[in-house]
């Protein structure tokens, strides 16, 4: 069953929403309605469902109504018409008390500009949601400290928000949302205010966190790359309506209309690729039991100065460099154990951006290794270059 069901949601800013609604029903556009009635149709009748444990992306340009939608879900804004069901309960029918309980227990929210309380310490910020529920001090601090450890800010609990960097602030924002252990996370462009490196880092962290905590997430962004990376499904919004809902690949391969096609075309699709998709099978690999002579020969064959070493179980054991192998061969030793070095590895699902970053730093090839330690292939400078040479290719 769907966790969140939004049906026919409209939100009109202005004091005469009725007039605007009529025009909306008659099919007038947002712009026409604004000039005729002075009312802004921020959201003009949208429906979507979010499944339990799914990350759902609301994507669209500035002013398309993403923030308005996300704020209607916990009724920070009152919807003009339409219904929102969470776990089968109608949010728009909740009275004040129910709404408070719903916000305090089911929902954690993360904001673009962090919205941390400047007069409170990091710990008190994180504990805020528990505090409003009347959780005793000891308990809420204990819980908040656990969460702070999880987001990597254990040592910062006594600091004030203005002493933190942007990335750290948003970690606190995330911790504050997680502290109440909500089912649902509402994230309104949480990483847009961060610089690209930090943004990437935070995205990775959110991904790995989500693998463990399995929350239902609605994530707003105007960055298609970010949406594709983090989302299971996404809705493309324009002028308060949804043009298309689906997985990234669905939207790419079958854009619903010209607007969506144009929208997705702008993105560098190579950014969607992962290690698995760009890795190659190296010409030669060394078996753990083979000697330095053979290693040198194999390296000559594929014209490299290194070779990955695997065991008989196909698990990666390490890497051997040619200079070490040559020294060893001179001494006439048989085993390569002594010169086996740790290899740089990546997971099959690691994004291309991370691979760029890591290879850019070391210049070395990366071994692709799955969760069980099995060697699956390698990402080399050559595979990256050929990818760039191919240019923009579809997934």
């Amino acid at each position, binding site marked *: 069953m769907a966790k969140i069901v939004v049906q026919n949601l409209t939100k009109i800013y202005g004091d005469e929403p009725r007039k605007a609604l009529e025009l909306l029903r008659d099919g007038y556009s947002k712009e026409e309605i604004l000039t005729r009635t002075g009312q802004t149709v921020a959201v003009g009748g949208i429906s979507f469902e979010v499944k339990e444990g799914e990350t759902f992306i609301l994507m669209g340009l500035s002013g398309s109504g993403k923030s308005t939608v996300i*704020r209607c879900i*916990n009724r*920070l804004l009152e919807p003009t018409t339409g219904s929102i069901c969470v776990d089968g309960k109608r949010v728009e029918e909740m009275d004040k008390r129910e709404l*408070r*309980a*719903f*916000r*305090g*227990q089911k*929902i*954690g*929210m993360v*904001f673009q*500009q962090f*919205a*941390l*309380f*400047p*007069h409170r310490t990091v710990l008190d910020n994180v504990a*805020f*949601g528990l*505090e*409003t*529920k009347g959780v005793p001090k000891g308990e809420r601090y204990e819980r908040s400290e656990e969460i702070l450890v999880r987001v990597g800010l254990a040592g910062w609990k006594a600091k004030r928000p203005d002493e933190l960097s942007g990335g750290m602030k948003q970690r606190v924002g995330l911790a*504050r949302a997680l502290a*109440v252990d909500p089912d649902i996370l*509402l994230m309104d462009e949480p990483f847009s205010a961060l610089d690209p490196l930090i943004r990437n880092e935070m995205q990775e962290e959110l991904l790995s966190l989500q693998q463990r905590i399995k929350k239902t997430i609605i994530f707003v962004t105007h960055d298609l790359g970010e949406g594709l990376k983090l989302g299971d499904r996404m809705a493309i919004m324009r002028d308060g309506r949804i043009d298309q809902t689906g997985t990234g690949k669905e939207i790419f391969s079958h854009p619903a209309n010209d607007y969506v096609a144009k929208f997705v075309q702008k993105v560098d699709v190579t950014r969607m690729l992962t290690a698995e998709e760009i890795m190659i099978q190296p010409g030669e690999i060394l078996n753990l039991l083979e000697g330095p002579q053979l290693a040198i020969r194999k390296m000559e064959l594929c014209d490299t100065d290194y070779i990955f070493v695997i065991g008989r179980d196909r698990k990666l054991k390490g890497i051997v460099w040619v200079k070490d192998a040559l020294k060893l061969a001179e001494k006439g030793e048989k085993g390569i154990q002594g010169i086996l070095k740790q290899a740089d590895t990546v997971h099959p699902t690691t994004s291309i951006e991370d691979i760029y970053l890591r290879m850019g730093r070391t210049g070395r090839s990366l071994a692709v290794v799955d969760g069980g330690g099995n060697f699956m292939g390698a990402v080399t400078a050559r595979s990256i270059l050929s990818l760039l040479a191919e240019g923009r290719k579809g997934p």
Partner: protein
Amino acid sequence: MPKIPIGDAVNSFINFLKEDLSWVFDGISGVLDNAISALESFLDFIPPIALIFLLCFIILLVTTKGITIWSFVGLLLIYDLELWSELIRILVLVLVAVILALIISIPVGIWMTRSKTVERITFPILDFMQTMPSFVYLVPAAMLFGIGPVPGLLATLVFAIPPPVRLTYLGITQVPGDLKEAARAFGASDRQVLTKVELPLSLPSIMAGVNQCIMLGISMVVIASMIGAPGLGRVVLTAVNRLDMAMGFEGGLAIVILAMILDRFSRKMGEYEKIFERFGKIKQKLKGVVH
């Protein structure tokens, strides 16, 4: 064009209040009178030197060592000038006026941020209170409450209430909307939004209002000595009437000293966390002494 009889209307209104509602004013007057004299006799009862030390201890808790030392010197000087009893009278009047003013003004300032109607009604009233020359209401106040500290107190209230109302309102409206939104998103009730977000964030502004309230309170209590408010103000007034420059200067100097102490004190009151910290330290030291 005929003259609209505003003045006559006010006249008959005051007469109506005086004749038909005198029991109300007598009641208010009685309560305040008693409170003021109780406080005065309590402070009179403490030997001046002991009181100076006590006050300086409180000043030290809230402010710095430097301010405390200057306050000590200033208070001793007032004592030496034989103006101590007048100081107590003006201090009591200012304190009662300020406390009453804050009890009224801070909630009104908060209320203004909650209701457009209240906001619309309050602003012109504040303008009226702040710009209407005080002499104009000193006379009716004396007519309704008789001569003495009470009409002076009420006239002072008129003057001291508007700044904290405005600054409370200003402080709360300046709290960023996204912080209030975040608080609500985490399940805060209206009251929690007020106490956990809006008030703490507008504290500097509110404390500026408190400071203004105190300073205006002092200046007005001095003026109110014309309708019988006791204290240093009356010293100055008497001196002016007698053309006694020496006495006038001494009284004026004492008022300046009091004003400066209260100003510095109220400026530091907003740093309540530091004050609690110091208080905690002293408590621990005392415990150490006992054990």
